[in-house]
């Protein structure tokens, strides 16, 4: 149909919410958080390698990780996880035919819930 379109134009369509309905945000956000979390997963695995290198390496890393920029990153990761998980619940339920008629309400509700949980975690993490 549009073979001639460049890769970029095709990707832009995924992230272009203009004129689209509210659940389209679910699609966008799920895609971004999913890609982000995959990136984090492999960074995390690499970081955990420090555990095998002994106490100094790991504790040194944890100490380094206490600086605020890292904390912001961590909050982002946790939020991404929560959002992806709750949106995933909606998609999973819908896939088995549950709550489809209310998918829009479900999306808004779960997103609001995700927001509240994210704020709670951010508060806990910054005050810890």
């Amino acid at each position: 149909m549009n073979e001639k379109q460049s890769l970029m134009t095709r990707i832009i369509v995924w992230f272009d919410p203009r004129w689209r309905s509210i659940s389209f945000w679910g699609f966008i956000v799920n895609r971004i958080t999913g890609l982000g979390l995959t990136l984090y997963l492999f960074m995390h695995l690499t970081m955990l390698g420090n555990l095998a290198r002994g106490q100094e390496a790991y504790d040194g890393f944890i100490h380094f990780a206490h600086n605020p920029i890292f904390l912001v990153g961590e909050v982002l990761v946790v939020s991404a996880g929560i959002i992806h998980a709750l949106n995933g619940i909606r998609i999973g339920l819908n896939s088995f035919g549950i709550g489809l008629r209310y998918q829009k309400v479900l999306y808004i509700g779960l997103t609001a819930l995700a927001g509240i949980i994210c704020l709670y975690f951010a508060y806990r993490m910054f005050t810890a």
Partner: protein
Amino acid sequence: MSEKWTVTFQVFRKKGGEAAHYDDFKIEVDPNEYVLDGVERVWAFHDRTVVFRHACHHSTCGACGMRVNGVEKLTCITPIRDVTSNGGVVKVEPLRNFPVVSDLAVDMGKFYTQMDDVGHNSVNSDFKEAIQSEFRPAGPESDKQEFMRLSDCIECGLCISACPVSASSPDYLGPAVLAGAQQHGIHGDEHLLRLVDCEDGVWRCHSAFECTAVCPSFVDPGWRIMDLRKQVVGERIKRLFGGSSNKNEAEVAK
């Protein structure tokens, strides 16, 4: 008589190999008229070269799907009042994810072929829930024919234009075709199963629900895709445990 608005119709133009552009037509309309009426006015009174598809003017044929101010609409049932204001703009473009024949007309060839391929019946009896009145209780076999009805899907293509995956994956069957497959039902149909249980089939959907949002004809393709998934998974599990899932075989066995 009725109210008069002056509205600018911004019409997508493309002929053959020439570059696409927009032509503006400032026309007088009744805001209760439909967007398709506006496009037809442009053709009748301003520019006979404008090409657009239309037929029934009451949402049963699915020919007049266009993007109106960015959103997929069946233009024959979209009042001008709903998409602009007096002095405003109505931007009309052809559907996305279809080849443009000329200006606003797109080629439905591949889509129609796929609808035939998944066995979507244009007339079927799957509609009782749709009708507001109570019907006579199930009668003799001959009564069933009376409940045959034209399918909800009018094959307008709005859902395919709105789908973000159809935009990036040209071979994806798309919402209407998968909805057609769902309505037909897998029932052990090997051909249909292979068509939808593949990378271009039912798994390409990522729940953006844009199809359902733009569908003008109560099809709810989003729901139907999810239901088709259930059918496919059920079929696969049945086969995993050696269940004879081929309906024809079963019937022959009887």
